[in-house]
């Protein structure tokens, strides 16, 4: 899966799940603040990532993910 495909797919499922515009999901934006995530939302984030990319994120891994760009980097390491 290419980076472009990862970004496109991520924008699509995150905007639908967390009910935000795809336009606010930009590389440098903070993932937690943009999606307004609380601890329960992270549970749903794990589920939706597993459904879309086929791997399960360990909760600890989120500590290393600040921006959407960080997230795409992380996904790239998992799907390649």
């Amino acid at each position, binding site marked *: 899966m290419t980076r472009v495909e990862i970004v496109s797919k991520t924008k699509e499922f995150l905007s639908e*799940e*967390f*009910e935000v515009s795809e336009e606010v999901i930009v590389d440098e934006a903070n993932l937690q603040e943009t999606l307004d995530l*609380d601890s*329960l*939302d992270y*549970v*749903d984030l*794990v*589920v939706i990532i*597993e459904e879309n990319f086929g791997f*399960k994120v360990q909760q600890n891994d989120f500590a290393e993910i600040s921006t959407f760009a960080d997230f795409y980097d992380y996904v790239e390491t998992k799907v390649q």
Partner: protein
Amino acid sequence: MKRVVITGIGIYSSLGIDKEEVKDSLFKGKSGIVFDAKRKDIGFRSALTGMVKEPDLKGLLDRRQRKSMAEQCNYAFVSSNEALTQANIDLDFLSQNEMGIIFGNDSSSKAVIESVDGVRAKKDTTLLGSGSIFQAMNCTVTMNLSTIFKLRGINMTLSAACASGSHSVGMGYILIRNGYQDMVMCGGAQEINPNAMASFDGISAFSTNESNPTKASKPFDRDRDGLVPGGGAATLILESLESAEKRGADIIAEVVGYGFSSNGEHISNPNLDGQVRSLEMALKQAEMLPKDIDYINAHATSTPVGDTFEAQAIHKVFGSQTPVTSTKSMTGHECWMAGASELVYSMIMMKHGFIAPNINFENPDEFSKKINIFADTEERTLRTILSNSFGFGGTNSSVIITTYD
């Protein structure tokens, strides 16, 4: 002791999505019962059910709120919104004033089944998502509504089988009457999905008159062959008279009596003594005589045994003159919600001056012929009504409400 009044009611059922629609259905004797073919595919003996539309709450509630709500919570949100609006109570008011919540609910089967199926398929509980636990707990309705409406008083679910909704009103009444709360949101909610009703169908309690769904529920009729399940939600805003007057609220009715009892016998069969004690306790509480009751909204579910006992209990306490109908002839048995919804139906009748018909009542049996069952809509003034609810385990509840003067 404080007087307890009702300042808001809301309803979401197979008879309509608000009071206006429901009023029309009640007056016309319109049934909400359908044949739900998918029940046959999964092994149901009877595919009959009261049908309720799934409300679309997107735009009304945010994602986090909706995620935690089981099917019956969605219905209860709509009915509660309608009740609060009528009571002229908004979120600003609730942030400044304490309201409690007691709702009748006795299952959340769909959510439980989906979570178990999910973990069996994924073999990983953390892939169930965040909403599962909050949907699957029996207190799902009160847990969610108290959060959404910022309720800060008593907060609990009451599980008492098919008398749950009625007891919720009774308990709200006791709390306000004794000064513990000024306002309590009471009600009942009932999921209608097939999974919720599979085990009930399994004891052959349901009518199998599938060729004629709207004729299947026939409480008190000689040829009844079982109940039809239904559902939705109903909400009543109970309030002390002082609180209602202080707010300048319109008062719909007053709760004046609550009787209850337990049969202490069979788990599913009713008995006469328990029902009679519940009726007599409600009258005593209300300081009323049987002749003071203008209308009885019966529990009668259309089962051969259950209706027989209720007809006898009504005859023993009230004699043969008091008008009686079972709105379950139109709604089917709304189970956990029934006690609350039937009080709402009765208040709609009080407001509009009619008694809704006991449709499909064509031939009485030896017991129902002794009481005054109305098969057709009757226009008349109702000042005081009594609503009966009985449930598995022998739990009985009778609530009396009257117009407020």
